[in-house]
Structure formats: structure tokens, C-alpha cells
């Protein structure tokens, strides 16, 4: 019995993968190389790579020009799919990836657990009220993710451009005009129209603490399959289970205009996620869902350490000051000791 329960929990925990576009730093320099990471799993850990033929769209929007990403720009590392590209002129950039729809078949119990786990409480409630908790499900799902990052110091308006994905977040102001402590409004669009009364989860991660890797844990990895991709995952610890709670952070609900307002109370990479799921009468399906995430970084003041470009220049200048200061100090000390030696001789 315990084994069965555990198996169900494991299936539920690992059967749903949220997708995110992530950067090590969201403040980049113009004309620099960038490795944009596509995570499929949790915000903390990617569980599997995404095959190129699964992507309906992958594009970068900057200075009013939308550039399609070519297959050759993608590489893979472990379970992370990496988009390599060069930034160009300064501006606020947007990158997006949209995937093809797939079907996922679940028995009733697993489906209920999955709804609970993903925070899809509206659908779970609907099933309760309509005595549908015992119904198995075949869900058609697709994922559409965006990230907004700042290149150089010039702010441009691409952050407000819709990529035309089935579901997408569009901020109502440039996140890079904001600082920690400010509030931001985001509009959620479904097929280009505001999506009202939709649950959205907002959370953040301080980039300083975002790396985690443990060889021992890695050694205990086991494999499983999902999304038709071969992948592996570690789930031996409480930490691991916690990292699979896809619904941490602020729980928000869009208003009638499809808008949520969130308080960006901490420095870090902010990520917003939502899953819009509906019942469907389409052939061989019971449900249809569209998943969306958006990421960007917020800092307390501009020009400090998260501002890589400015910080780098400051650091380079400081290196020279330090080296020159060191040489000067050694020189002064040398002259002083040399003089003392000569005085002692005399």
C-alpha cells in the first residue's frame, strides 16, 4: 500500500514540468555572448532537455526586431537546453519559447494529485462539485515562456510587445525601470485577450543562492520518462520534494482586465507562472492546458553588483588602482628600508 502511494506521489511530483527561461545575470553588456538557459522542471532544477522539433517558436526581440532562433544556436548541458546568442545594441530584450502541444494520460487519482500539486484549485474544485473526481484524464498541454533582460543602460519598449503565444504575461511597465520595493502590474493574455480570474503564482530567487549541485545526490539519481524526453531526477531528500512545489510564493488572481499587481519586495530573479486548464470536448481529450512563465531580475539600486556591465568597468578600474597602489606601497617600503640600512651603515 505504502509502495503504491509512494509510486503515485512520485508520478505526480515528476509528471509535471514547468518551463522557465533563465539567465545567470539579467543585466548584460551590448555585443556580448549570452547563454540563455531553458529549464524544464522547476525553477531550481531542469529535469530534461527540450528537443528542437518540439519548439514552435523561439525568438529574441530587441529594438523592435524579432529574430527567430536557429536550431544551431541551441546546445545542451545535462538536462538544460541552452540558447547561445550575441547581444547587439543596448535595450530591453525579450526572449520567448513556445512548444507544441502534447497529450498526457492520467488516471483519476494521479490527475487529482497533479491538480493539487500544480495549484490548479479551480479545476479540482470543479471536479469535486461535479462528482468528477473519479474520472480519468487525457490532457493536451503546451508551454509558452518568456524572459525580459536588460542589455546596456538604454531602456527600450520591447517589453510590452506581445509575442502572440496562446498564453503570455505582458508587463504594464518596464521591469527594469523598477527597483526592489516597487509594485508591478502584469497583464495575462489568453489568445491575445485578457484572461480574468486566473490563478498566478509569483516568487523570486536571489541569484546568489540559486546554484545547487551535490555529487552525492547526483549519484543517487534515477531515471524516468516524461514529455517523451529521456530524463533523470533526484528525489531522495525533503529539499527535493520542496523544490517540486510549483506553487510557492505569492498567490495572485487576475482581475476582470486580466491584470495582477505584485509587490517586488526583494532583490532577485522574479518568476511568474500560471496554468490555464479547461475541460474540453475535443476528440480523445478531457482537458486542455496552456502553461506560461515570465522571468526578469529586480535589484535594489541600479549600478550595483547585479549590474554586470557597470560593475565590470568599476572592477577593472579598481584592479588598476589596487595594483598601482600595491606597487607604490612596495616602492615606498623598499626606499624606506634601503635608506635605513644606509643610515645604519653610516
Amino acid at each position, binding site marked *: 500500500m505504502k509502495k503504491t502511494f509512494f509510486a503515485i506521489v512520485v508520478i505526480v511530483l515528476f509528471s509535471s514540468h514547468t518551463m522557465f527561461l533563465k539567465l*545567470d*545575470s539579467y543585466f*548584460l553588456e551590448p555585443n*556580448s*555572448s*549570452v*547563454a540563455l538557459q531553458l529549464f524544464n522542471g522547476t525553477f531550481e532544477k531542469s529535469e530534461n532537455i527540450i528537443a528542437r522539433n518540439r519548439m514552435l517558436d523561439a525568438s529574441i526581440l530587441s529594438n523592435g526586431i524579432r529574430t527567430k532562433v536557429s536550431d544551431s544556436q541551441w*546546445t545542451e*548541458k*545535462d538536462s*538544460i537546453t*541552452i540558447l*547561445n546568442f550575441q547581444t547587439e545594441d543596448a535595450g530591453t530584450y525579450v526572449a520567448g519559447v513556445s512548444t507544441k502541444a502534447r497529450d498526457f494520460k492520467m488516471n483519476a487519482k494521479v490527475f487529482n494529485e497533479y491538480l493539487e500539486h500544480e495549484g490548479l484549485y479551480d479545476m479540482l474544485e470543479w471536479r469535486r462539485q461535479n462528482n468528477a473526481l473519479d474520472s480519468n484524464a487525457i490532457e493536451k498541454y503546451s508551454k509558452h515562456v518568456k524572459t525580459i533582460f536588460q542589455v546596456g543602460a538604454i531602456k527600450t519598449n520591447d517589453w510590452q510587445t506581445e509575442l502572440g503565444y496562446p498564453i503570455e504575461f505582458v508587463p504594464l511597465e518596464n521591469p527594469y525601470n523598477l527597483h526592489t520595493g516597487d509594485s508591478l502590474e502584469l497583464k495575462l493574455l489568453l489568445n491575445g485577450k485578457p484572461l480574468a480570474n486566473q490563478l498566478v503564482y509569483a516568487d523570486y530567487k536571489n541569484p546568489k543562492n540559486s*546554484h545547487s*549541485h*551535490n*555529487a*552525492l*545526490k*547526483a549519484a543517487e*539519481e534515477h531515471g524516468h520518462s516524461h514529455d517523451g524526453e529521456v530524463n533523470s531526477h533526484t528525489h531522495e531528500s525533503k529539499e527535493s520534494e520542496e523544490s517540486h512545489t510549483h506553487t510557492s510564493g505569492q498567490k495572485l488572481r487576475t482581475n476582470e482586465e486580466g491584470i495582477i499587481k505584485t509587490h517586488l519586495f526583494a532583490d532577485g530573479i522574479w518568476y511568474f507562472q500560471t496554468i490555464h486548464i479547461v475541460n474540453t470536448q475535443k476528440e480523445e481529450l478531457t482537458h486542455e492546458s496552456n502553461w506560461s512563465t515570465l522571468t526578469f531580475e529586480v535589484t535594489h539600486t541600479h549600478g550595483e*553588483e547585479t549590474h*554586470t556591465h557597470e560593475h565590470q568597468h*568599476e*572592477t*577593472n578600474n*579598481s*584592479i588598476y*588602482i*589596487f*595594483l598601482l*597602489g*600595491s606597487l607604490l*606601497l*612596495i*616602492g615606498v*617600503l*623598499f626606499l*624606506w*628600508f*634601503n635608506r*635605513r*640600512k644606509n643610515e645604519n651603515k653610516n
Partner: protein
Amino acid sequence: MKIKTKRKILNTLFLLFPLILAAHGVSSSDQEILNNGGLLSYIYVGAKHMITGYDHLLFLAGVIFYLKGFKDILRFITVFTIGHSITLLGATYLGIKANDHLIDAIIALSVLYKGFENLGGFEKYLKIKSPNLLLMVFIFGLIHGFGLSTRLQSFDMGTAQFLAKIVSFNIGVELGQILALIPIVFIITLWKTKKSYTAFYKAINMYLIIAGLGLFLYQLYGFLNGH
């Protein structure tokens, strides 16, 4: 006003000792190199870290000053290498890491220690004999290795070829150490023949004390202020 002035002084100090940021910070360009370059990239980043990791080099310069002859240098450098390899490999593999600032503060103290010892500080001021240098170099080697490990763990290494990546980084560290030591040994050896060597010896070791203290305070400031 006084608080503001103090803050200005601290910020100036912060600016005067920033090399640690360049030498030790996890730069996105290094991360990118590691993402795309395979095991060779770990060798490269390891070597780069050692060459630009001036606190390791300052300590080694201090050790070399004290030694006589190539054999002695080889013996002490080997012990330092064994020491830092143990903690670099072990701590990284086991996922043990320290606070960046605290470990770097201890490494800074090792620089101060070596300058103080070289100037005969133990005998002159503490009226005790200097601790066994070989043992101290081994202990400091372990500490420096832990610092290197903490830095390596700041990178997103992934899980594939995990041990091979650590070993590659360690190989890079050793290569970088050799490259950096060549000019240091050359300058010290060359100066030994000059009349001004005593003044040079004292100046460098006094600098090690000042730099070690400065770096220690800088790291402490960073730790307390979350930089």
C-alpha cells in the same frame, strides 16, 4: 555626519581592495566558458583563477622568500599542492562549502601570517619560536583548497562528469600555479644577488602584512554588509 564619513572611508577601502571581485567572483563569462567548453574549459578556468587569485600567490611568494634553493621550493610547493588538492577535490565532491567572505578572510590571514613570520615576528614580538613551516604550509594549503572549492561550487557545474570536472579544475589550478610561480621565483632569485635584497625582502614582507590585513578587513566588511 560621522557615520557618513565612516561609511565613505569604508567604501573607499572597499574600492581599494576590489581585486578579490575580479579574481574570485563567479563571472558570467566564466560560467559561459564552462557551459560550452567541456573538461578543457575547467582546466582553463582553474588556471585563470589561480593566476588572478592574488591571495594564493601572495602566500606562495611569502613561502618562497623564506626558502633557500630549488629543492626546498619544490618540497614546500608540493606540500602546499597536496594540501589544497585534498580540500579542493574532497569538499567539492561532497558539496561542502563555506561562506565566500569568511574563507577568503582566513586565506588573507595566511598572507599576513607569512609576512609576519618572514620578518621574524614570532621571535621578536611574541618571544616564541615560529611554528613548523612545512606543517603550516600544509594546513594553509588545506584552507586555500577549501577556498578554491567554495569558488568552484559557485559555478553551475551540472551533474555529468562531476568528478572529472573537479579534477580538471584542480589540474588547471596547478598549471596556473606553475605559470605564476616562474616569474616570482625568477625575481626573488635574481634579487638575492643584489645588495638591496635585504630592503627588498623587508619591503615585500611588510607589504604582505599590510595586504593580508587589508584583505582580511575587506572580506570581513563584505561578510558583514552582504557584498
